């Protein structure tokens, strides 16, 4: 059986020809997979950086890495995870799925699509090339050490010698160009290429959330790119935008950065919301509760997200009025996010819940993102923020959102759509090991961070004060990080194993309702031989239940 499966692989051609196909491809599905594979590569790097940091923090005053190296590690970890792991893996999933979900043959601009991917990849390579090639004072191995947010004036020529900061600026800027290409392409595709009969109000929620995400990218990235160009002017052409030694303004960078940086959080989160909005209904055997309010919540998150950036800056000494404005705006975002939480929960009610691996990851998302959201409310309370911001409490909070929320959702997506892309289901047993180890490891890693923060541990420190109770919590965190690392090994083994030996999936293994399941697994290059008639939000439900179709209820 196994040997058969191997020899039966289609298109057994010379490796060079296969590589040529992948490098020159303009097919949205192949580009999607390229994004996902590349993000796995960067995940390995970012994960190893995190583990090294956790080892260094096992005990106070350890010297596993030097302070300089530690600073490079957290800079690279943050930058990698945000720009080169979560964004691309979600972009890859959107690339793969959105055209299928809306019944299109490809993206609106297939070559722009390929361009976006390669820009992202080369941006990442350029960033990591700094480890090998940065010229300047420190010689080889000078990765950037400025934090993922690159606050001025630490990045000005006076305080950041050599070229490491330039690698950071150029690497993120170039991958940002890729992101904007992706977003423009997505908007064009979703607006113009939907299947006949599919109104915007009938789109799968995942497509809706990608649409809003793309809107956010289009608004948030250009100012960021502009700010980065200004910083390059500072560094190489003697401009003084952020160069405080010459009268520049360090706060200007903070505003420009967070004007991008906060929407970025939702750029990462909305696709994850989209994923669970697809997974939870299918495994509850229920229609999503409150589709319209879900869409309204998504759109309003998109709008509010653009107006809350300065809540990252409650400690910089803005006036009370400004602080209160941004505090109120931040509170406001709890309302649409709450609506989503309640709708997902209500979808479970009265269902016939199948605890498959993707469903477990989505339920993990629900419970962990709930905690992340509630600690977010704490941080929106200005005086509490004075104590908690830039402490490990904050690190705990945003990892609950970014790892517990977003990454669990991404994992859910892997297990849910793997059969569509590969034609085989992922192994359930390995998947269960992966889920439980990751869930336990995650909680051991990030719950204690809240306590270390309350005990006064600031972020971005390579060591901490002995004898105030921080050792215990840091050691639990480190153990948790190692368990999380091991859980991801199960995931990688599962990806590999299931590719060759997984159970054959068939076209619609989960008995789902959206259009991507209406074609073969994996889909042919042209996606659909024949599209079902789209008259409602769940075209395959209508096919399967001709007696009680959805469009009667909408």
């Amino acid at each position, binding site marked *: 059986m196994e040997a058969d499966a191997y020899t039966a692989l289609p298109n057994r051609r010379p490796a060079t020809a296969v590589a040529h196909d992948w490098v020159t491809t303009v097919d949205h599905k192949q580009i999607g997979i390229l994004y996902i594979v590349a993000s796995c590569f960067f995940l390995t790097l970012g994960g190893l950086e995190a583990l090294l940091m956790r080892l260094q923090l096992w005990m106070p005053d350890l010297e596993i890495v*030097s302070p300089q190296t530690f600073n490079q590690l957290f800079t690279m970890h943050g930058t990698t995870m945000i720009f080169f792991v979560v964004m691309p893996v979600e972009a890859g999933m959107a690339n793969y799925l959105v055209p299928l979900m809306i019944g299109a043959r490809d993206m609106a601009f297939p070559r722009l699509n390929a361009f976006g991917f390669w820009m992202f990849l080369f941006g990442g390579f350029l960033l990591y090339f700094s480890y090998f090639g940065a010229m300047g004072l420190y010689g080889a191995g000078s990765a950037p050490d400025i934090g993922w947010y690159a*606050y001025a004036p630490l990045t000005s020529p006076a*305080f950041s010698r050599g070229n490491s900061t330039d690698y950071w600026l150029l690497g993120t800027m170039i991958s940002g160009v890729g992101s904007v290409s992706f977003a423009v392409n997505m908007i064009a595709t979703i607006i113009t290429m939907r299947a006949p009969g599919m109104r915007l109000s009938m789109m799968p929620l995942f497509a809706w959330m990608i649409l809003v995400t793309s809107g956010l990218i289009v608004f948030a990235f250009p100012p960021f790119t502009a700010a980065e160009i200004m910083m390059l002017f500072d560094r190489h052409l003697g401009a003084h935008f952020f160069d405080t030694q010459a009268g520049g303004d360090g706060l200007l960078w903070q505003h420009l950065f967070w004007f991008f940086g906060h929407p970025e959080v939702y750029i990462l989160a909305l696709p994850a919301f989209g994923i669970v909005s697809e997974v939870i209904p299918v495994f509850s055997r229920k229609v999503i509760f409150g589709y319209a309010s879900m869409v309204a919540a998504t759109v309003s998150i998109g709008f509010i997200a653009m107006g809350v950036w300065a809540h990252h800056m409650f400690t910089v000494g803005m006036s009370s009025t400004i602080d209160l404005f941004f505090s109120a705006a931040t509170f406001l975002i709890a309302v649409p996010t709450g609506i989503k939480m309640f709708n997902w929960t209500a979808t479970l009610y009265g269902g016939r819940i199948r605890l498959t691996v993707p469903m477990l990851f989505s339920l993990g998302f629900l419970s962990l993102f709930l905690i992340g959201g509630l600690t977010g409310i704490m941080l929106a309370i200005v*005086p509490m923020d004075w104590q908690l911001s830039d402490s490990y409490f904050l690190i705990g909070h945003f990892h609950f959102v970014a790892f517990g929320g977003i990454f669990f959702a991404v994992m859910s997506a892997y297990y849910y759509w793997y059969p569509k892309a590969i034609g085989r289901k992922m192994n359930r047993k390995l998947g269960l090991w992966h889920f439980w180890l990751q869930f336990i490891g995650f909680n051991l890693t990030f719950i204690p961070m809240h306590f270390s923060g309350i005990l006064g541990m600031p972020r971005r420190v390579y060591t901490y004060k002995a004898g105030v109770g921080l050792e215990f919590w840091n050691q639990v965190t480190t153990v948790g990080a190692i368990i999380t690392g091991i859980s991801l090994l199960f995931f990688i083994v599962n990806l590999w194993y299931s590719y060759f030996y997984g159970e054959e999936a068939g076209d619609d293994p989960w008995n789902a309702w959206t259009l991507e399941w209406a074609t073969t697994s994996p889909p042919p290059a042209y996606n659909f031989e024949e599209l079902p008639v789209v008259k409602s939000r769940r075209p395959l439900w209508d096919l399967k239940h001709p007696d009680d179709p959805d469009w009667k209820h909408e």
Partner: protein
Amino acid sequence: MKDRPVAQDGIQSQRSHGRIEPDDARRTCAAGLLMTAKLPSRIVIRSLRRVLLTAMALLGTANVLLAESTSIFDTASYNSEKISEIFLLVLAITGLIFVLVFSAIAVFVVRFRARRSETEDEPEPPQIYGSWPIEIAWTIAPLLIIFVLFLVVVRSVNEQRPTQAPGDAVQVRVIGNQWWWSFEYPELGFITANELHVPLDDTEDPSSVFMQLESADVAHSFWVPRLAGKTDLIPNRINTMWFTPNETGVYYGQCAEYCGTQHSKMLLRVIVETPSEFAAWVENEKKPAVNDPAVADGRALFLEHSCASCHTIRGTNARGTFGPDLTHLMSRQTIGAGAAENNHDNLITWITNPHVFKTGCYMPEMKLTAENVKTVVSYLETLR
């Protein structure tokens, strides 16, 4: 424990008197006037805090109750007390929301879990497309909660951010440097480093500490968790913050905004003393440096070498400002901004090779012979 001066009698009675009346601040804001719901009484808060502290101690942080604690719940000032009160209130509200939503999820998953015997051919469960009354209800409920929370924030921000310092506040000008703190007392006329002495506030002499925060290079942030939240020090900008300590002791803090290689070891101590202890300390700090003829050699070496271009010793030609003022070096507990204890051996190591304690700091290796280092240290040790 050893760092902590013996607390004077009657501290408990001094803790609770008000300084800046919350009511004054509240009157300045119309939204604040809407705030009729009072926080639970202090006694309830105190016992709640005790429960929380005990819980955390049980969770493995027994040290939280030690004098060296840096926990934000182990409050020692009016300001941090106010913040931990809000913390407990918000913890109660968010905790309740968490319990409600999480149990809903858990109950639904358990209750509606498909039985193994069920096959794919089973009929689908009833489809519920939504319910406007319910959806509107859970839009409005969070709105109400955040509205209440926002009023709490408005009141608290107005309490914590008075525009004027009390007339008799101790004024301190804090300057953040890579990677140490300069503390200037403009009214008293001297500068010290890394260890901030402030008097305890008491009824007879209410004297909040009012700080003006500046930076000499990159952005830093002043954070002493037990005394107050953090405020950034940003170049070309003057920030202000204040706190009113209500317990004597040594409070640890550190830079909370990433500021380069040794951000981790930009530590500081705030020493809260009784007014008389503080007055004695001030008297001593005001004096110029001791000029002991017995260590004239060391003094000469210090002034001849580049030490003098970075450090100031009042009463000598050393007027450098790149490094900390050393006029009363021996009155401090640590060297290298908390990197090491201030004693004979550590001073010798520090001058020979500061990177032993603080890799990457800007203090250079002084390239002195071992003999000369000892001579310089013998001079420094007279700077009391």
